[in-house]
């Protein structure tokens, strides 16, 4: 763990943020995850580094509440939910969280218009895709279609702040987002980016996305869909050579109360083999996964 912390600290940029790889431009996704990772160390955390990361996030919030990806791409981005999850760990950010929640609640995945539906009905067979386009979650890019991963992050962020900003609209958006995720579930459980079938042929789930979706749906642990997907996740974790998959999977299993020591050993082994290819995001997630309670993503 010391080596992980050191690599994360060494990867911190002068501006206080983290990029996808050491030396790359700081971005909201990696900075949020690194702040969460350092915070997960509790009293052992390097406070100054955590604070510099937190300051980067606070400096980069846009006036209307959202976050951009980085300094090059200044438009509102899907990373807003991750910044909220990070900020939620620190008291005294109520105003920032409120504007962020308000912005996030205004975002909804776009549904096809009448012309697109008409064209689609004639141009594509009825089995082209198997999803309900009317269920609105969250998109990667504002005003485009809903997908599983951004919807999952949004649900986690909104559920964490639910008690602070509870409204009827919030409850409705959470419910709609959950329905959207369940609608996109693959046969046999689990999720990929958000499409379970194309032209009648089943597409396969991904372990990382499955874990993130299950974390977003953690308040429905006993449901059949969740349990089926949990089984699928464990199968995929056994079959997938990937630090990212193991880390997200372990965080998810921990939240679902599953014993994770064997997976933590797998993560360590994988880290020794590949160093996770130096990817800051995976390093941060592995630090979070190594902490027993995974509180960063609990709702």
């Amino acid at each position: 763990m010391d080596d992980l912390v050191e690599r994360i600290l060494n990867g911190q940029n002068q501006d206080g943020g983290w990029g996808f790889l050491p030396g790359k431009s700081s971005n909201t996704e990696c900075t949020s995850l690194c702040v969460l990772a350092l915070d997960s160390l509790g009293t052992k955390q390097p406070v100054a580094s955590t604070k510099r990361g937190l300051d980067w996030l606070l400096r980069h919030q846009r006036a209307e509440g959202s976050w951009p990806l980085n300094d090059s791409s200044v438009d509102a981005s899907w990373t807003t939910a991750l910044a909220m999850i990070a900020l939620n760990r620190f008291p005294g950010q109520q105003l920032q969280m409120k504007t962020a929640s308000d912005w996030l609640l205004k975002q909804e995945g776009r549904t096809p218009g009448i012309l697109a539906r008409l064209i689609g009905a004639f141009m594509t067979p009825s089995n082209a895709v198997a999803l309900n386009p009317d269920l609105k979650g969250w998109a990667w890019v504002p005003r485009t279609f809903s997908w599983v991963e951004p919807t999952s992050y949004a649900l986690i962020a909104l559920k964490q702040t639910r008690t602070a900003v509870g409204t009827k609209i919030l409850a409705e958006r959470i419910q709609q987002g959950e329905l959207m995720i369940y609608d996109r579930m693959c046969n046999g459980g689990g999720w990929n980016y958000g499409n379970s079938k194309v032209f009648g042929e089943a597409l396969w789930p991904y372990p990382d996305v499955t874990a993130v979706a299950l974390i977003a749906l953690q308040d429905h642990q006993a449901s059949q869909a969740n349990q089926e997907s949990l089984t699928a996740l464990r199968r995929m974790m056994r079959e997938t050579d990937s630090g990212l998959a193991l880390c997200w999977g372990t965080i998810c299993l921990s939240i679902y109360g599953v014993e994770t020591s064997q997976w933590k050993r797998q993560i360590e082994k994988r880290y020794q083999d590949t160093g996770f290819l130096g990817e800051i995001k995976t390093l941060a997630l592995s630090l979070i996964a190594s902490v027993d309670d995974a509180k960063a993503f609990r709702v």
Partner: protein
Amino acid sequence: MISRRSFLKYSTLASVIPFVDGCSESQKWRAEAYRKQRSSQVAIVQALRYDLSLREIITKGVRLCGLEVKGKTIVLKPNLVEFDPGGVINTNPLVIEAAIDCFRTLGARQVLVAEGPGHRRDNEYLLAASGIYAVIKEHRVAYVDLNTDDIRPTRLLSSFTKLEQLYLPETLYNADLIVSMPKLKTHHWAGVTLSLKNMFGVVPGSVYGWPKNILHWKGIHNSILDINSSLPVRQFAIVDGIVGMEGNGPLQGEAKESGVLIFGKDLVAVDATAARLMKIEPKKIKYLAQAGEFLGNVNHEKIEQIGENLDRLQKDFQVIEEFQDLKTLT
């Protein structure tokens, strides 16, 4: 009652209307985007199996095209979309390995492998499962995840999507040449996916998501045109057609042994030739037909086939029902 086929024609027109905005077709690209030459050369080289000496075959194709690489920084851009142990989705790692070897031998200053997979974020998994990780490790080649590279806003030189700009990876700005290395495949939305469509992978997922959905919203054909018209680096193509994919591509189609590698500097001409090799009419592929107006040559008579004879190597690639019309060669 309007037939399904007629509706398809009209709806294709309808999908174009919102992008026209009163401009004529010729106003959809800026003068700087025009790079169509009077004629183009495309080399088809037979390569029956992956266990042959692909380095020699690729070197032959590169030389036939007169590509100069000495002292250049070259980005190899394979097609790494997904992984299916029983499938043939991705550019075969042996072709990538041979290209690394070839360009180094020909004196390239640096060779990189770069891709931005469109569905999966898990780079580590995709690289390991596809066999590409072993290649880059053995040859000590840098791999750049284009999904998470540093980015630069890039003004689009054509306006098919009406996006005005796209963020593109810095790696493209720092290279002298990008080599698009697609798999020879049919595609259930675009008809075919070849060297032009392969450039979807340069668009960063960190901005546009997984899938890069904004490109689909703006139309696959339109996006292919705008990306390719605006790349800040010179291009070359090597199509892996040793084993291609037919039917429900790009992920769930069937393997199709074709035994060729296709090379060229004009990506439009390469793709038109690759389509003809699949017995698919390139001028019926919307983006190829439009690319033929300004990016390169699509007409058979404007493409000089060098290397093997196209007619002799043609294979009948099956397409999904909606694209049967593409199979009528003109």
